[in-house]
């Protein structure tokens, strides 16, 4: 079953050129000059029920714009969005009533009130009955350890606590679909782990469909079954993480320490590229897509007697760097 359908999504921002001087606001209003910027260009995808999708791209690539279009906040210049068969732009209220949305940069809780009060208001807003509310909150309190700051005003929470409280708030009405815009931004290692664990539970045990944007590649690697990469407003990759590794084909780095003398032949296999020789240590880059590790090692053995081998797989961070 498809939970999210995006068809030829396009968003162009038109901002009037701001005039200087007196009455600038008024003159801007009647100005015909516009600066236009294509933030999202022709993006289409389908996300099925139970998928955990990471949506990544450099700053300003159009990630937030896409999420805001998907959640009905922004209206696309053209194209269509369907969430569980409903259009968030034509039936905003009905559609968003079935979504959970978390913006890491912003809280949806009531700033000056105790955390628990926000849940009371949200329950009323989403029409969650008292019984369901109590049951779900008890569950979230356990998974996210909310109890310790239950009665604290939101403005006094630490960033990690606030994020946990916000996540619980977004799930209070038990939506099938969850949009998370940078939920781990600025958090420490512990808080990140806690939140990832919660998201994994939501996805694996409760079968929730989740779309997540992040700059933390560990989030993607540990949680997502699928990655979509956006750059300059266009989807540049859509697939699984292993196949993303393959597509990029970053080389594996092997450091070999030889015992005694060794000799590098003049002609070596094209699969191996020597990047450095330092005393007894030779560093080579190999493409493991073309050659198996055993074959490579056999080759290296012919150069001399090997004392130690150290292999380094390409970092996911490096892969992403390559895609950007």
């Amino acid at each position, binding site marked *: 079953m498809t939970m999210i359908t995006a068809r030829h999504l396009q968003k162009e921002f038109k901002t*009037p050129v701001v005039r200087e001087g007196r009455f600038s606001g008024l003159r801007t209003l009647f100005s015909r000059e516009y600066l236009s910027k294509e933030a999202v260009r022709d993006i289409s995808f389908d996300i099925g029920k139970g998928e955990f999708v990471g949506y990544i791209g450099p700053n300003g690539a159009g990630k937030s714009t896409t999420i805001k279009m998907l959640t009905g*906040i922004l209206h696309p210049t053209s194209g269509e969005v369907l969430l569980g068969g409903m259009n968030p732009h034509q039936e905003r209220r009905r559609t968003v009533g079935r979504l959970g*949305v978390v913006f890491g940069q912003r809280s949806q809780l009531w700033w*000056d009130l105790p955390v628990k009060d926000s849940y009371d*208001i949200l329950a009323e807003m989403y029409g969650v009955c008292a019984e369901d509310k109590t049951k779900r909150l008890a569950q979230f309190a356990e998974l996210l350890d909310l109890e310790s700051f239950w009665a604290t005003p939101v403005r006094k929470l630490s960033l990690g606590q606030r994020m946990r409280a916000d996540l619980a708030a977004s799930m209070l009405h038990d939506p099938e679909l969850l949009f998370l815009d940078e939920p781990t931004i600025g958090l420490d290692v512990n808080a990140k782990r806690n939140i990832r664990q919660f998201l994994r539970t939501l996805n694996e045990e409760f079968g929730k469909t989740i779309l997540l944007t992040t700059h933390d590649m560990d989030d993607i690697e540990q949680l997502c079954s699928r990655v979509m990469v956006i750059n300059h407003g266009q989807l540049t990759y859509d697939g699984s993480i292993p196949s993303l590794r393959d597509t990029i084909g970053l080389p594996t780095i092997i450091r070999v320490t030889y015992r005694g003398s060794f000799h590098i032949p003049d002609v070596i296999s094209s699969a191996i590229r020597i990047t450095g020789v330092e005393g007894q240590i030779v560093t080579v880059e190999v493409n493991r897509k073309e050659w198996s590790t055993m074959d490579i090692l056999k080759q290296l053995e012919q150069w001399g007697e090997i004392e130690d081998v150290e292999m380094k797989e390409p970092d996911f961070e490096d892969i992403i760097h390559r895609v950007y």
Partner: protein
Amino acid sequence: MKTTSWFTLYKMLIRTSIRSRMQYKFNFIMASVLAALIQISEFLMVALVLHKFGAIKGWSLHEIGYLFAIMTLSKTLYRTFGNEVHHLEKYLVGGELDQLLTRPMPVLLALLPQNFRIMAGEVLQGGFILCWSLAGMMHSGQIGWTVIPFSLLVILTGAIILFSIGLVTATLGFWTTRIEELQTITEDAARTAAQYPLTLYPKWMSGILLTVIPVGFVNYVPSLYLLRGELGAWVLGAIVVVAVLSLAASLRFWKFGLTKYQSTGS
């Protein structure tokens, strides 16, 4: 959702807003005192003008007091419930409208109770001048007691008209983001102008105040009938129609404006 549950939710959000405000008691008290001081100085200004000129173009002191009081009370009613419309710029610049758009309720219903204002100073000041004007005119036999309930109706329709003007102005912010200067003209200047009889102004200006920015219908037009017996009883129907039409038009424009919301980068 049923209308009754919208109302329950609305009440809940207003209570929340008041409770949030009370977290900063000192600020709340200071703001109230300052607002009262501003109101008193504004009243002194008007009193001074009235004292100096006595009557303006055939309008007596009491009549002008009535115009002023109705405008103050209508504005107070509008700002008590609809203050956030006047402060939409804050939401546009900061992108805070994002949150409200993800809630399964009409955006205005989520926006308005964000900041419920208790404007005791304005109510007292406006109420005092209204009572004084009405008492004066009743004493001289110019008007009967029926003007009292009609005045309440006029305050209500006036608040709706002012709200509509405020909403249209705010909606323009979806295109311009900044709206403060525009508000100075459509809300503050227009309202201040209508505190005096429109006959004071050149034709083109009173024309604008009765059409493009219909503040004339808040106090001036109903006063013509209620206080001076001009025009006819149909005036009361007319102001209701103007109020309803303005509200409907502004709500439509608001809905259209929402589709042009640009949010902010993050």
